[in-house]
């Protein structure tokens, strides 16, 4: 379930995925024509808006949009200037900003960031062990630094 902004100017449905917009106030650009709409959502309910804000810049773009009256023309994620990319970004739990994790809470490397170095063999097969030192030397360096600072623990 998600709310939408149906832009009547270009007949585009902009989908507001619940994770980002459940409690959110700001401006969104229409993926079809770029019109900027202000909304304020509280617990998934559209408390105010959508109100047009001509001339203002959007805070965020929709992840996905389509035009149901035009053969379901789609705007997939990651079209520059229209939709934002879908990066599966984990967020810092209190600040809400994107936060790729390179290390576990005890300070050892965990593959929590993208893109990863390609390592497939034929037909998508993977070698068995991901060697941090070899495949992600910059993370390995960071790990060594952490070790020197005593930030790597056993538990």
């Amino acid at each position, binding site marked *: 379930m998600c709310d939408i902004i149906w832009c009547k100017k270009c007949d585009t449905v902009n989908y507001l995925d619940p*994770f980002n917009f459940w409690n959110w106030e700001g401006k969104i650009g229409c993926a079809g024509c770029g019109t900027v709409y202000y909304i304020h959502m509280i617990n998934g309910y559209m408390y105010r808006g959508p109100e047009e804000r001509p001339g203002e810049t959007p805070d965020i773009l929709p992840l996905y949009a389509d035009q149901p009256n035009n053969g379901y023309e789609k705007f997939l994620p990651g079209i520059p200037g229209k939709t934002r*990319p*879908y*990066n*599966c*970004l*984990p*967020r810092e739990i*209190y600040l809400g900003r994107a936060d790729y*994790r390179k*290390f*576990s*809470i*005890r300070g*050892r*490397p*965990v*593959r*929590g*960031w*993208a*893109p*990863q170095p*390609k*390592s*497939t*063999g*034929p*037909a*998508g*097969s*993977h070698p*068995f*062990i*991901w060697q*941090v030192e070899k495949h992600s030397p910059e993370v390995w360096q960071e790990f060594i630094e952490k070790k020197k600072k005593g930030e790597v623990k056993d*538990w």
Partner: protein
Amino acid sequence: MERIERIPMEEQSGPRSREELEANKMPYEEFCRKLFDVGNEFSKPQALKGIRWLSCTMYIFTPHMVSNLAELGAEVIKIEFPRLADPMKHTSPFNEAYVYPLHDDRPLSGQGLGVINANVNKYFITLDYHRPEAIEVMYRLVKMSDGLTECYRPGTFDKWKISYRYLMEINPRFIYVWGGGFGYGPKVFGGSYDILGQAHAGLASITGFHEDFGGFPVKHTNWVIDWYSGTLGTAGILAALYWREKTGLGTMIEFSQVMCAARCIGYTWPLYGKWGIVRQRWGNWDTLLCVHGIICCGKSDYPDSKNPQLRDEARYVMISAFKDEDFKELCKIINRMDLYEKYQKHKDRVEATAQIEIYNALEEWARDKSRSEVTKILTEAGLLAMPVLNDKEIYESPHFRARGTIRWQADPSYGDILVHSTYSAGLLSKTPRRKYWDARPVGADNLRIYRELLGYPMSTIKEWYAKGII
């Protein structure tokens, strides 16, 4: 040779008396530590070594059913759709927390934490069952395997000619497991999820507080029926393997998830059958024992924490004092001997109105205390009390660490992961469960299985990959 019974005790080697024998025994604690030798699982044999199983599974229920076998030593081949993967790999809490990679074709898509723990030690290959080439591959795998678990809608594998009816013809020893929502019957086409199982079997209707107390039917936060059904499914497989040992014949197991959810509702149906009573919810208290429930304390154990789960919610404590003498002690501690006078017999205090009065009195007493204080007071008085722990506290708990229940896993593909699976399912002294890896990227073992096990030439494998067959 003289029978040992005829040798006088004092001339025998070993302990001279029963007392000496008892005295020579190492303390039970030490005996257990030595016997189970937690952390040294990899040097011991595996009970199911030699068993090969095919896991045509998705989500949690059926993958977990097979994961149990893999943790006990079976060689398990998990078959996913090319490039798509088990849908569970695309789920993660609030769409956060992914580990990478999922597949080289999708560099920005990680594997979500939703799948963690459900596919332990499996080899991951890809195969599109729709393609004619896939049938031959499946038949060859079936000929050299002991069984298969699948979770597609009933009849789907039959349509693809890889159902039990076909496979028993080419391998009569084959054990075929279907696991899914409803199984055959009036709702044969009904799919299922854990929450549907909890709802349909009536489990959710008896979970949570009654509406009179501001409650409502509650599903368990985690997918408990998926994990539970999977474990019951594994028990069925082990029985089928034993049956095959005796008869040489395979079998088909049909596992409906809503059926499994019905197994854990206890006396609910017999109660309805005898008296026509529709069971109601009783929340954190107990319908059979009193006092035997969870109460809320007034103070937090972490008043200054910025995490609300610690600051606001670390206030709950489980208390048990249902025996008459324990209840008397509890009433003395909370200075409510009037309650003891009123409800001296268990049959009196287990009644609903009595429970409401007793638990209200307990929460009133705990209003100016933290759960640690409540636990300390009651434990020192010889009563059973335990804080409702959160995952941070479990991580720090010496009990779980000493028994190896929660561990850091240096996963070969994904790095440092904190896990409990495998090690949270009992300790076996001779053939312990073990975890080599948690999961593998999509098609990670295509070469190992198609080339090394089945012997297909590289040119065929590459052609299939290019065509999306694997």
